[in-house]
């Protein structure tokens, strides 16, 4: 039995009503908690891309992938966990900041290459794009100052290199027609 770990799936789907629901239902049915989920359109019209992070073991990951392929509107599934993909997440953090504490907070943000996007006399809103780890790091550093509100997008991921696996699939011959 292999151990469970956080796995990242990229699911390319047709952009149609209900598709996200079908994908998520696979995980819901098996009582998995989804750690992170992002969905948006892609460079191709009518194709959306789901980045999904979930804790499963090897066997479960393989079965999930096979079951994702059973969904009619799923075009291509990548389990990029072991490929060292490029992973990014966006966070907006609203943190307490007075005249006295503001410079110190901004200094910390600078170290993380985070940007202040709103300043009021009592608070700052900071924007950070980075790996989920890096965002966790900034949150920990800002927590003592008093985080008022926090929102994260969840991870988006992409394989390194020049290849687009989806292109191979979409340019392939159409499936065989039933007799």
């Amino acid at each position, binding site marked *: 039995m292999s151990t469970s770990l956080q796995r990242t799936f990229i699911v390319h789907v047709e952009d149609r009503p209900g598709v996200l629901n079908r994908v998520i*239902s696979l995980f819901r049915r098996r009582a998995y908690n989804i750690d992170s989920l992002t969905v948006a359109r892609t460079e191709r019209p009518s194709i959306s891309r789901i980045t999904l992070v979930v804790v499963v073991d090897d066997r479960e990951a393989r079965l999930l992938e096979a079951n994702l392929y059973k969904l*009619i509107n799923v075009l291509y599934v990548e389990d990029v966990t072991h490929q060292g993909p490029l992973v990014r997440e966006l966070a907006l953090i609203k943190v307490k900041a007075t005249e006295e504490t503001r410079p110190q907070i901004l200094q910390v943000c600078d170290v993380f290459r985070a940007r202040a996007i709103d300043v009021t006399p009592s608070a700052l809103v900071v924007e950070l794009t980075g790996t989920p780890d890096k965002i966790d790091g900034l949150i920990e550093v800002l927590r003592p100052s008093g985080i008022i509100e926090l929102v994260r997008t969840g991870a988006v991921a992409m394989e390194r290199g020049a290849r687009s696996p989806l292109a191979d699939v979409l340019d392939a011959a*159409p499936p065989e027609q039933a007799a």
Partner: protein
Amino acid sequence: MTKAGTSPKIEQVPTGHGDSSSGSAPEHARSTTKRTGAEIVWEVLASEGVEVVFGYPGGAIMPIYNALHQRPIRHVLVRHEQGAAHMADGYARASGRVGVCLATSGPGATNLVTGIATAMLDSSPLVCITGQVPASLLGSDAFQELDITGVTLPITKHNYLVTRAEDIAPTLREAFFIARSGRPGPVLVDITKDAQQATAAIEPRPPAVRLPGYRPAHHPSAEDLTRAAELIAAAERPLILAGHGIIKAEASPQLMELVEKTGIPVASTLLGLGGFPATHPLSLGMMGMHGEAWVNTAIQESDLLIALGMRFDDRVTGNLKTYARKARKIHVEIDPSELNKNVQVDVALAGELRRTLTELIPRVARRTCTPWVQHINALKSNSAARDIQYMPHNGRLHAAHVIHDLWWLTRGKALMVTDVGQHQMWEAQYYRHERPRQLITSGGLGTMGFALPAAMGARLAQPGEEVWVVVGDGGFQMSAAELSTCAQEGIKLHVAIINNGYLGMVRQLQQFFYENRYTATPLRNPDFVKLVEAHGLTGLRVTRREEIPDAVAQARASPCTAVIDFRVEQEDIVYPMVPAGANLDEMIRRPQDESEVCATSPWSSGAV
């Protein structure tokens, strides 16, 4: 709209396959005329070769029903929509074609749910068409509005909500394509009422269905096929496990060829029965929870399992940790998500079964398995002693007698449809299924109430067949209302109620595992003969074994559906039994000390 009370004349018009519209007068100028969405529904159904649909009208599907008028498609009016889904399922299982059912929105649609789930679990191709409230009312909790695509999302292979008339034809064509291709399954198409009423053009020559994400056809690699052939050559104690896929893929001739080339014995799953002829010397019978003892023992002792179109269901494997531990495993399966799901295999062949076997057989070396088969035959020897068939007459009518005698009296040729419970297992054990599609039963979902409506669908698919329904007194009452449909539609069935006055399988579990506390399992039944006669059908009763031949003869002679109420031994047990989660060879066997063994049964052909 037409008045609700004026029902369309349901005329039976025989029609050929496929093109049913040629030459009919109202079909003029078909390429340019716009049609209503409702008319398009029937146009597509006709072009898909649909000859019969099962359904129940209602407000949100009335345009479609209205457009059925004078169509060359037969409509069977059921008494409950669940019956419509089961009938379409029975039709599909008996014919291999797509079964079609119709229902209105809301409660009509939800009543289909059990039937759709039954089809899903047994990979039966269905297209279910439901009416929906007008698109402008979606999400408003309008009268009889229900999110049926949401409800059926986990129990359909795919489903659609259609809100525009121009989407109806392409969607229905996709639905048929998805339902019948790859691993078959049910597809639901929910059509809003305004889409049914709106008009759209329909192309006379529809474009081919193109679904870029749908890949129903898989083919194993040549290397994997060769590896499988090598394992088969090297095995000393190989077994073939034949599943439902043999029947779905119509791969029985290939299975026979493989067996004749290798001499490997064949065990069947419940749904695989009939995929390999039961009277073949290398047919072992059913495996699993109520499988034959020698089969389960042989599985545990085997050194190679060749699993064909089956999915290692927990009813088949028992405890997975101890399942066939000495065996290497080859698994051929059309659905890749079934490979390595329950059982880790050595060679996983994702592929269409008939084609895969056709490619595998030439690679397999000719061989025999004589010592292994002799060993298995020796395992059988003490089983006859435990068979109720061979026990002396004690005056009581056992269900096993009924099934055995039905097999004998129908010469093993009837199309058998069973419900779910003890009688289902006795049917599987005592009827000998010789050909594919001879047994229709709910295996995956285990749906009580399935048999009667499914048999009606099967009978319409195979009008030349003698169809027998084997059903318990509990399950019969779950869909007994469809007797009325049987009478109205003139569908002739033979129904054997195995009446033991209990929910027998649950009572058996109570006896074994709940210290004989028969909570909520005794049934106070109506007089089934009178119930059947109230429908204008033939009702018969049998209480002694010697009455069986006469009752069967009367049922067969009856011009209409005939129901025989077999009053069988009340507290009989299905033996053998592997308790849930136990090791496959930890079987509870019929006690031998009851009485001495009778060498021959009056009905037996002598074979074990």
